[in-house]
């Protein structure tokens, strides 16, 4: 029996108080994600239950109980507080998926500070922009990332503490770099918990938009209400499940459903911090008897590419429920998993800004392969006419995916950017920036972005950020960045470039430009394809026609080119 029961039955009379009651929360009480995910689970008699199975690079394995989780988060929280870090200070996590990352996340929340997770593949520029915007006061990292951080520290006056969790005693650290080895720290049995309330800030995730710098999406402790219930109902977690969320906590899936959701339910979860290979992943599922698996379409397509035969070498019979997020899951992937794994993947849709799953295919509900599914109970979703921002009633007509504000995990602000935040709301609706249709049975069908943001492998990349980085390359005169189709990642970054006088296009320059962006921003933002043009297409007013270049890549109609500049 699915935890959710029957979808239609849950819609009737739904209120978020269901989650509040199950979490013993009463409106007005203190609420703290760090405490709910560790101390509360211990109080429920699960102190000795495994909270985390961890496997890292080089075959390192660790196992932690919920009591370990409680103690380690206390210890880190206490250490940070003793440094002088205060409630609402921004503390960045910049490291691999090592246990310290998970413990630090909750430890920061326990002392009322704001946790700012950043993807460890970010280059110095990406890191600088996000730390600068947030006014981050401390960063918790690993030794291997120090060289990147050291380059930008002099330009970040707010950044006072660089905490290194794997410092080796014989290696020198610079000013403001503080070693912290969890294994050698004295465990803190009792930590005075910060009495956060529902609207106290908790997590600051950065996301990219079409224009301008990345935006810091501010969430609050009350988000746990959405994350708890969606984890339980959408991912269908039973008390004895072994759960694996493959997302990195540098992205919102890795925190909402890789930390808060499962641990607020007292569920055992697994973390694999090793590069992708089909063999490694299948072996991991077999070894830990993973029963619920939440992953991304890019990973599923990579597994499909590895072939069906390899699956036979592993016992994957523990798998009970499969779900996917990050980008649209193509129908072929759903059909493949049903055929090869014996279970279909259930697609889900949500965003950094929504903080929790908004539309999904549910256990027990008929799956239409390729569809996003239906809105979660309590969520009012629609597709809107892009001109009037009124819901489209005609079935099958495309419009903007929008939600009525008010669900618990909704973002509360864009950090330092009230204008951008206000622009996300029209006519009483939150605009997701994505387009879809709704069919006769109420299923949503994803169409694409309503802007130029590139979704590559489930990660959003701003063309503006990449173009800005390209312009800093000495050979680049002008650039336009668009998406191009890709079998595995759905779409990837492509750059059109015109060169400055004195430079000529060649393969070495192409490689140099790619690596330039990779180091400055990240491997995700690195153009996977560079095309040199003598002149980029522009309007008569001088604006580069990115739309035209994108249409060409996707084999679409170029549309109106009456404003195209003539030679």
């Amino acid at each position, binding site marked *: 029996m699915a935890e959710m029961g029957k979808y239609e039955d849950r819609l009737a009379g739904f209120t978020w108080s269901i989650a509040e009651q199950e979490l013993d929360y009463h409106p007005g009480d203190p609420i703290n994600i760090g405490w709910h995910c560790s101390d509360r689970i211990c109080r429920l008699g699960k102190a000795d239950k495994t909270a985390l199975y961890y496997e890292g690079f080089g075959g390192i394995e660790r196992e932690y109980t919920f009591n370990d989780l409680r103690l380690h988060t206390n210890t880190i929280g206490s250490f940070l507080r003793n440094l002088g870090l205060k409630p609402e200070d921004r503390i960045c996590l910049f490291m691999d998926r090592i246990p310290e990352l998970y413990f630090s996340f909750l430890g920061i929340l326990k002392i009322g500070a704001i946790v700012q997770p950043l993807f460890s593949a970010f280059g110095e520029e990406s890191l600088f922009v996000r730390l600068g915007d947030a006014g981050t006061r401390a960063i918790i990292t690993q030794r*291997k990332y120090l060289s990147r951080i050291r380059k930008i520290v002099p330009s970040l006056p707010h950044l006072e503490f660089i905490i290194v969790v794997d410092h080796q005693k014989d290696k020198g650290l610079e000013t403001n770099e503080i070693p912290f080895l969890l294994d050698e720290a004295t465990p803190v049995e009792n930590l005075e918990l910060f009495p956060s309330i529902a609207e106290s800030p908790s997590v600051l995730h950065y996301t990219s938009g079409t224009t301008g710098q990345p935006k810091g999406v501010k969430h609050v402790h009350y988000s746990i209400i959405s994350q708890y219930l969606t984890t339980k109902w959408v991912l269908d977690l039973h008390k004895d499940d072994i759960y694996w969320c493959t997302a990195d906590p540098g992205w919102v899936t890795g925190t909402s459903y890789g930390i808060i959701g499962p641990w607020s339910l007292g569920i055992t979860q697994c973390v694999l911090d090793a590069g992708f*290979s089909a063999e490694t992943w299948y072996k991991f599922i077999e070894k830990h008897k993973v029963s619920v698996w939440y992953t991304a379409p890019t990973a599923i397509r990579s597994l499909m590419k590895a072939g069906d035969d390899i699956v036979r070498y592993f016992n994957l019979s523990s798998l009970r429920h499969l779900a996917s997020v990050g980008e649209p899951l193509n129908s072929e992937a759903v059909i493949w998993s049903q055929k090869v794994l014996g279970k279909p993947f259930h697609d889900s849709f949500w965003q950094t800004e929504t903080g929790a799953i908004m539309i999904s295919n549910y256990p027990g509900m008929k799956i239409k392969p390729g569809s996003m599914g239906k809105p979660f109970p309590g969520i009012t979703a629609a597709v809107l006419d892009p001109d009037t921002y009124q819901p489209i009633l005609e079935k099958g007509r495309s419009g903007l995916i929008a939600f009525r504000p008010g669900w618990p995990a909704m973002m509360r602000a864009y950090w330092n950017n009230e204008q951008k935040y206000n622009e996300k709301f029209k006519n009483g609706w939150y605009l997701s920036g994505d387009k879809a249709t709704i069919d006769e049975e109420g299923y949503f069908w994803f169409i694409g972005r309503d802007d130029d943001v590139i979704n590559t492998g489930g990660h959003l990349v701003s063309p503006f950020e990449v173009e800005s980085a390209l312009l800093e390359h000495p050979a680049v005169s002008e650039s336009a960045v668009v998406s191009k189709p890709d079998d595995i990642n759905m779409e990837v970054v492509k750059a059109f470039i015109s060169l400055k006088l004195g430079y000529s296009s060649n393969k070495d320059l192409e490689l140099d430009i*790619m690596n330039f962006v990779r180091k400055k921003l990240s491997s995700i933002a690195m153009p996977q394809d560079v095309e040199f043009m003598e002149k980029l297409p522009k309007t008569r007013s001088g604006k580069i026609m990115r739309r035209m270049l994108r249409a060409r890549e996707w084999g679409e109609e170029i549309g109106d080119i009456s404003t195209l500049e003539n030679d």
Partner: protein
Amino acid sequence: MEEQKLDEIRKMVHDYVKSEYIDDDDVTLTYDTPLISSGYVDSFSMVSLLIFLENRFKIKIPPSKATPDAFDSVNKIVKLVESYI
């Protein structure tokens, strides 16, 4: 192919990977150090490594052969390159 030539290729690939993809000076990169499964090179970065190999050795490696497994160590990469020279 002569062992001496293979050694040159091996060193060239090793030095390139070390300088381009590994931030930490303390990491000892051997010819068998896992690159993909250790996270030094991710699937997105593989494209730039592929272009480096094609440019430097004047070869064309089909996308179907540029797999994470084939790129997982310097020795594996050299084996791949050798088959296209």
